[in-house]
């Protein structure tokens, strides 16, 4: 029995050695012609996904007057095929008033209600096929308002982010939520002072009007209110506020002018409609003054207020 066990062990070792040896010999000698069983996985093209699109950091858009205001659109772009798809892809980002629709905006951008960008700034490093992005738009001061008292109050502003990979697959998403663009009431007066020059007592400016031009620096129709913040004063002496007169057309003092008051008064015939481009919407007011009799000499200074009134 003992010899049988030894024999079995010897046979086992010999057979095993032969088999292993055969395997290595076959791999070495016949390897070039042998057939390997291989496995493969075809990684398909995955469409990118756009998510978490937010507009202006989820706050209503407030514009600066007479200039542009930066408005951010943030989004996350993901692609299961990896970051290379994102870094080599192309993007289109739309910022538009919802009444315009994204398709119209894409074909006819304008600064009134539709802005288009074709690039984003990475706001994070791409990781696991996901990239946070920011696109900043310089929105003009006359962009259309959508809040409750605006002419487009049934609309709001939306953003759409469209991403296309080099494989020509696309993903897109809209901002959630949309945001209002606030009405902007603003005025710019391009004249720094009203300079009546030198006048004698008991005289007036006659037909020599001083011109003050006001421009609409906002996105709504604006009327104008005028008043004196500080009447004309020189030391202890004053010239009555009502001595200054204004009109929307030229006049010979007092003519058609309206006497200035200490409280704001809406100027008749003055209306600045909302601009639709960077071309100024402007209107002039004409100013004159009378110096009462017996008015002491001096340098008289004062301040007039040009106040915008929403219409």
């Amino acid at each position: 029995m003992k010899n049988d066990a030894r024999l079995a062990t010897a046979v086992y070792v010999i057979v095993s050695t032969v088999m292993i040896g055969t395997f290595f010999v076959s791999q070495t000698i016949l390897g070039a012609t042998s057939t390997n069983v291989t496995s493969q996985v075809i990684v398909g093209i995955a469409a990118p996904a756009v998510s978490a699109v937010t507009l202006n950091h989820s706050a209503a858009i407030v514009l600066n007057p007479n200039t542009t205001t930066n408005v951010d659109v943030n989004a996350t772009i993901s692609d299961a095929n990896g970051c290379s798809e994102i870094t080599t892809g192309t993007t289109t980002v739309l910022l538009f008033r919802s009444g315009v629709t994204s398709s119209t905006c894409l074909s006819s951008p304008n600064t009134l209600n539709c802005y288009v960008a074709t690039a984003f700034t990475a706001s994070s490093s791409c990781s696991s096929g996901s990239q946070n992005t920011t696109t900043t738009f310089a929105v003009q001061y006359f962009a259309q308002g959508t809040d409750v008292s605006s002419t487009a109050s049934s609309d709001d502003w939306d953003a759409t982010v469209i991403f296309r990979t080099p494989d020509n697959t696309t993903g897109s998403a809209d901002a959630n939520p949309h945001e209002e663009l606030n009405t902007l009431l603003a005025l710019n007066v391009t004249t720094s002072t009203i300079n009546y020059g030198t006048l004698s007592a008991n005289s007036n400016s006659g037909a020599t009007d001083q011109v003050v031009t006001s421009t609409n620096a906002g996105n709504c129709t604006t009327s104008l209110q005028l008043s004196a913040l500080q009447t004309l004063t020189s030391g202890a002496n004053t010239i009555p506020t009502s001595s200054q007169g204004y009109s929307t057309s030229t006049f010979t003092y007092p003519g058609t002018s309206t006497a200035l008051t200490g409280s704001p008064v809406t100027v008749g015939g003055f209306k600045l409609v909302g601009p639709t481009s960077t071309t100024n919407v402007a209107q002039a007011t004409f100013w004159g003054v009378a110096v009462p009799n017996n008015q002491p000499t001096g340098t008289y200074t004062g301040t007039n207020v040009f106040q915008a009134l929403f219409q």
Partner: protein
Amino acid sequence: MRPISFIAVSIAFVAVFFFMPAAITHAAFGVSPPFVNADHLVPGSTFTQTIYLVRDNADQDVKIQASLQLADPIKNWVSFDQGSSFTIPAGMHQFPVTISVSVPKDAGLGIYHGSLTFNTAPASAGQVTIALGAQVEINLTIGNNVYENYVVQRMTFPDIYEGENPLVDVKFENDGNVPESFDSAVFELYDQYDTVRLAYVQKNDGFPTTPAFSVKDYELEFPIDFYMGVGQYWGFVTFYKNHQAVASQKTVFNVLRSDWWSRFIRYVAKEWIWLLIALVLLVGIVIAIVIRIRRSAAR
């Protein structure tokens, strides 16, 4: 006689001089929005709205004078946070002013109007300077009807640490005149490719209430029976009110590696923050007492 005649001559040929130099810096000025429309107030309501004083040129400080024009009975209902005189600092294009309306409980129903005006101070003197101003219309309607109007301004999924539950940050804006909250929410967790759903959880309570006419930020936790290891996941949350989906968001978020120190810091920040502050104050007081005793002893 001479002085008298000099005065007479002076009076006869009085001249008014206005100097030409214009040191003023031109800047457009305005307000956005130029109205406060509180249409759904009820007696006892409080309402706040932020408007912005805006300018294009922010190179210098600008002084502002503000005044309310309100008649009875709303004269004492309306206030604003900046006072009648304040300064917009240089560099600031948009300056917030918060207007508050507090309607007394015995207020009569009706429609009320007023205004709030802001005037800039001219930047120079010596001439008839021009100051710019803008008017904010205030329109209040006091009624007795229930008005529901809200919007979820933000839903984001902050990054979390491994082993934690998903979180959703919510900004809830309630423009109605009754308190609002969600009834329920569903959170679905997907793998990084948004193909395999890993977890599903429904939440039926624990939603903060947002008072009328206010905005509330809060964070909601969705406990799930799934251990989220380090990596990227897709989250999909839907909020319901009266069995209707009212807001949803789907996006990716990260699960970060967590070490004991960061876990400890977060735990302290979340659970022990007041205890920690009290401890710091206590230590400060003890140190002050010890120093005082030592100084007394030294004398």
